[in-house]
């Protein structure tokens, strides 16, 4: 397998506050990497570094071998689906337009195809079709989050960044979504970086798991390896909770 995402000595700080001191990381094409770590440890920051939303203070990030600092970010991002923490929906667009946002960026004309795709994705995330003409503020929290996921999936990307995508849904829906995303990963071979704060979810979904501690990688390994040989106390405590 070849490396699709690579961090080399990446560093990010806000003022005096160093969020990511020195990150080195390789993600292989087709992996399903789950990223777990305590609140504020820098998970969202790492995701946003991949699609260039947060510029580095030092070091570089390579996507498909190219340094994103010198790449055309727009075409890069069109190949990266991004499910934002919370939901990040556009408040002035209805659900349909939100989901169709990326397809519309690429190809405006084929309305029929877009409409079909939208209907497919809304079903994948377990929502009724009659939500399509609602606006974000007319949805419940969990519904908003699922629309956000549908929006990310609708881009049919090669890399999928998902930031706590199932945080606001109930357990039953969550299991359904976990199965869906696993199926999508297996069928399409998309590379997924998936932030979660649920260790069971991380272990269940990930082909690899990253445990983050204060912006540094505590452990990066397969779920099995992590469960068998936790690298330090923090990881131990995490998996004990399972």
């Amino acid at each position, binding site marked *: 397998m070849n490396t699709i995402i690579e961090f080399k000595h990446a560093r990010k700080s806000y003022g005096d506050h160093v969020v990511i001191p020195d990150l080195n990381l390789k993600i292989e094409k087709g992996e399903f990497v789950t990223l777990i770590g305590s609140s504020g440890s820098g998970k969202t920051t790492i995701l946003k570094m991949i699609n260039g939303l947060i510029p580095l203070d030092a070091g570089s990030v390579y996507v498909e071998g190219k340094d994103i600092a010198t790449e055309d*970010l727009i075409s890069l991002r069109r190949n990266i689906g991004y499910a934002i923490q919370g939901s990040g929906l556009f408040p002035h667009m209805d659900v349909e337009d939100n989901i169709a946002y990326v397809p519309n960026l690429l190809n405006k004309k084929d309305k029929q195809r877009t409409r079909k795709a939208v209907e497919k994705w809304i079903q994948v995330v377990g929502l009724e079709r009659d939500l399509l003409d609602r606006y974000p503020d007319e949805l419940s929290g969990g519904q908003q989050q699922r629309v956000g996921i549908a929006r990310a999936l609708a881009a049919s990307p090669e890399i999928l960044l998902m930031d706590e995508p199932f945080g606001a849904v109930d357990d039953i829906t969550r299991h359904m979504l976990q199965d869906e995303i696993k199926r999508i990963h297996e069928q399409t071979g998309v590379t997924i970086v998936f932030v979660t704060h649920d260790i069971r979810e991380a272990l269940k979904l990930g082909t690899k798991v990253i445990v983050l501690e204060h912006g540094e990688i505590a452990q990066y390994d397969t779920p099995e390896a992590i469960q068998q040989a936790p690298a330090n106390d923090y990881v131990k405590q995490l998996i004990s909770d399972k």
Partner: protein
Amino acid sequence: MDFIMDVLTLFHDRADFFLNLVFQHLQISLIAILIATILGLLLGIWISEHQKSSNIVIGIVNFIYTIPSISLLGFLIPFSGIGNTTVIIALVVYALLPMVRNTHTGITNINPAIIEAAKGMGSTKMQILWKIKLPLALPTIMSGFRNMVVMTIALTGIASFIGAGGLGVAIYRGITTNNAVMTFAGSLLIALLAFFMDFIFGRLEKALTARRPNAKRKMFVEIASAAVVILLVFAMLFSNIFGKTDKVIHLATKPMTEQMIIGEALKILIEQESDLTVEITEGVGGGTSNIQPAMEKGEFDIYPEYTGTGWNAVLKEKSIYHESMFKELQDKYKEAYDFSWVSGYGFNNTYGIAVAKEIAQAYNIKTYSDLAKYTPQLTFGAEYDFYEREDGYEALQSAYDFNFKETVDLDIGLKYQSIQQGDVDVIVVFTTDGQLNDDRIVVLEDDKNFFPSYMAYNVVRNETLTKYPELKEILDKLENKISDSTMARLNYEVEVNKKEPKQVAKEFLDELGLLKE
């Protein structure tokens, strides 16, 4: 309440006049609004993307805004001449302030998380602008836009300063003639226009930003958009921008009934007899003092003028003009401006003395000298003004040895009524007053030529006469065709019978056998 009634009556009586002004006003302001909107949006967007330039651009826009309109117009006239173009430029630059700043504020105050999301999806700058920023900034932009619309419609009143028409004509005319009703009527229409446009745009905004627009709302958007587009196209079509063909005669008239009639008659005649098109700038505010400079610049080709006015007001001669000096007048005009006085109409719009017909017949009075004999038995009426003028009552009295039993101050509006009721026997009139078209009143002959002469001619640029040699011949068709009493009759048709100047002109030409079907 009387005042309101007066205003309503005025609207009713001058419906066409006001409609025309409203139309011009809309035309000018809509074009300015359209341009200002585009320009303002572009500038506002540009400075939102280039924050560093925003202070400079807004500074410049502020600066321009502070230029007094009179100075700005004066500054623009050398470049863009008198008329719509100049006014529109001025309106546009004033309109930028609210557009630019509100666009800038609207765009820069969008929640950055939303923009980040759009960026994260791979939107280009343009896509972010169109799909995210502008829709979210819409309320703030519309707020600036709607202020701008109201301001522009209000400010379009200045158009009349430089002969571009619009409702400012009514206001300005009202102010100069001390006619509060007219001023109020003009202001009211501007206010109504502003109110109406703001209402339309308000509904449009609501319909545009509505969630799940129902069929009715959708239809409204369509209708309203269509209306605006139609108005604009209309405005464009009628505007000079596209109307500037080569073979156009620009004709100006002063704000006087008879000038309007003559203007319409000339237009009909010229367009009928040649392939020239006549464009009338009707009732230019300020009359001669504003038409003359525009004639000099070649913006007007022709206008009806009175010899006495040319002599005193244009040539600034101090002496009193009599027709014996016509050659001198012609020569001075040729030398100073290269204009000609051609095809006199035959009427003289000056002061005159009128008496009740009964009296004229009873004493067989035909001339002022005849009148002099009977003055001790007669009452004389004139406006206050006439008694005050140096060349007014006292001079007249001594010239003809008048010695009236009594003299009365009469309001201009009541003069004719008074003589008809027999309150006065003799009144001072203007020789082409519409109300002289009345059997019961006789105008006497000024046999000593006491009053200066104001014969009506066409003043034409020689350049125009050379370029269109056919013109002179056409103008000559009306030479000496209008006597004082004919002119009075035509004025009467318009002022009292409330016919349209155009209609009156047509009927008159028909009467003369000059109208071809």
